């Protein structure tokens, strides 16, 4: 017998018993399974563009076409060109976080049900699935950001263009707004994914909820068009703070709407925390209910 066998640590003892009351958040579990989160993310990305002719080009085409459509409608028809910024840039700046949010909300909302055969067969922290859905949206966000840079360069160097991109210290705050976007996205995703396990209505609600959400977020217009007294109420939509933050950070459009962003960030955090608690509490019956 080797010494290794003597020193081999006793395996941890696990007690499986019914849980009562509020479940502990137990995020350590998620940390232990961090590799699985990355594997799921990697799978979602790999699978998304398999057996498509254009492959990952779709990640470029989708936001660009959206932007072109909005530009056409809102400059030709409505004739607006807000804040002295070319409309495509104004619009695309908002589409960056919106694309991340709407895609992740729709993917993550369905993610648990899509992976039901795993959930009913194997144990792993269920949080890994919606978290991976959100993270895989980050890759599309990265691609869209590259497209954004190309558009900025085009407008800066195109002859006759009045737009110049200027580097300001505000640019350094962009990661903070990205984190805010992720917090809001993850919070909403957790809510919908857990709800969808029990109420399949979520699958029907998501498409038009996305549409409504799109229009109550200042994407095709500026939040300054919303009159003053409604602004705080308006900021309860966490995406408002995210979009205005992106615009301020990237384009330097008017002063930082601090009040609005604080409200949005608070709401986003609240959604994330309640989402986590709700998800954890529903998690124990996922395998039985799904």
């Amino acid at each position: 017998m080797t010494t290794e066998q003597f020193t081999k640590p006793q395996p941890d003892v696990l007690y499986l018993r019914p849980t009562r009351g509020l479940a502990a958040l137990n995020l350590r579990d998620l940390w232990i399974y961090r590799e699985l989160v990355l594997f799921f993310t990697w799978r979602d990305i790999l699978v998304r563009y398999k057996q498509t002719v254009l492959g990952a080009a779709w990640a470029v085409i989708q936001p660009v076409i959206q932007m072109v459509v909005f530009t056409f409608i809102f400059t030709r028809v409505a004739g607006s060109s807000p804040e002295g910024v070319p409309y495509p840039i104004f619009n695309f700046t908002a589409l960056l976080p919106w694309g991340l949010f709407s895609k992740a909300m729709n993917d993550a909302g369905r993610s648990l049900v899509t992976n039901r055969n795993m959930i009913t067969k194997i144990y792993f922290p269920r949080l890994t699935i919606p978290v991976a859905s959100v993270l895989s949206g980050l890759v599309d966000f990265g691609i869209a950001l590259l497209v954004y840079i190309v558009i900025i360069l085009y407008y800066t160097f195109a002859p006759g263009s009045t737009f110049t991109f200027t580097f300001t210290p505000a640019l350094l705050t962009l990661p903070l707004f990205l984190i805010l976007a992720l917090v809001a996205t993850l919070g909403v995703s957790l809510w919908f994914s857990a709800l969808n396990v029990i109420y399949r209505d979520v699958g029907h609600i998501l498409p038009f909820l996305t549409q409504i959400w799109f229009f109550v977020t200042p994407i095709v217009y500026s939040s300054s068009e919303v009159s003053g007294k409604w602004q705080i109420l308006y900021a309860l939509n966490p995406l408002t703070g995210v979009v205005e933050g992106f615009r301020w950070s990237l384009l330097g459009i008017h002063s930082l709407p601090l009040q609005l962003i604080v409200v949005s960030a608070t709401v986003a955090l609240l959604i994330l925390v309640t989402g986590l608690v709700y998800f954890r509490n529903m998690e124990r019956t996922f395998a039985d209910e799904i």
Partner: protein
Amino acid sequence: MDDIAIRVEDLGKRYRIGVAPERYKTLRDTIMAGVSAPIRRLRYGASPGYAGTGSSLIWALREVNFEVARGKVLGIVGRNGAGKSTLLKILSRVTEPTEGVAEIHGRVGSLLEVGTGFHPELTGRENIYLNGAILGMKRLEIERKFDEIVAFSEVEQFIDTPVKRYSSGMYLRLAFAVAAHLEPEILVVDEVLAVGDAEFQRKCMGKMSDVAQAGRTVLFVSHNMSAILRLTEETIVLEKGHLVYRAPTSQAVDYYMASGFTGAGERTWDSAEIPHEAAPFVPLALRLRDSKGQVVDTLRSTEPFQVEIEYCLDQAITGLRVGIYLLTMRGEYVFTSFDLDDPQQFIQMGVRQAGRYISHCTIPANTLNEGRYVLAVNASAFRVKRYFWDDHALAFTVDATGAPGKHWPEPRMGPMRPVLDWKIERL
């Protein structure tokens, strides 16, 4: 002495089942229930365990107690619905118990269904990594064992092909290979050996006894009694959610195979025994009749006998076939036969209308050897749905008096005892 791998105390799991065909809850239902619940409570008073209209509670598992020492291989047998799968699901943390506690010492690896988490669009290589991670392996661990896994699965040439192009055998081999290399302290296996060819099954069995010999604990659920006998030393028998027997395997298998039979040559089902997914098929009775038409438990090998299945269809079913499996006491199949095995008849009876039926057939004389046999019932539409399945419906005895070769008082090998047309020619 604390060399326990699993300790289970008063474990129970309660499920809520709909009386109506199961459907997803909708927000409307919940809102309506929320509105009407206080009213109902006022009317009928609050009673514990009251689950609202249209649903009832069943205990899939109740008051189960057992311990498994480290390094032991424990078999678990029981009929469908006895609670085997529920027990494994609790032990592998897929679902929570409703009461009691299970104490697990060490990492649990489960082979509840091989290939869970395989994605058809991903290649074999990609699926090994993904599946390994789902089963709880670290990336480094998978990398270290990658070659071994590929070698075991014998799919080297196709490792970079999407698994959707794999044959079912290749798919299965790869899936089992990943799971088998998990090296958990406790391995939970559910019926994986029911699939795959003989060579693959032999390999799986080998791998599983390796696991056991390496000092790990194995829980093995199977309907295949010969696999249970070969792999396990001790077996527990579950019946209707309760642990009813625990003994060295050969004793436990005998107990299980003999249990629950009325012994009267007839098996009937009452509504509580019929799973709700069987609807609209309602099994009523399975009977054995001797050549005189009597319902009997013991048949003579030299006489033909009848098997009849009586059932009701609440609605018409398309493509329904009702049939029997004949098994030996050790769980080996002797034959399978369906009432629409004749292609002509199958075409004519495309849709079986609602009503009450008897499907019956004659087993010719001189078919079975002496011994005890088990009949299983299956009602299904091929590749559509298995309505009803009872793999342990009825046991009966065959008496070989007067059968060929009976003048030599020795047991004959094999389940068949045909009269063959022997000729002896002198050359």
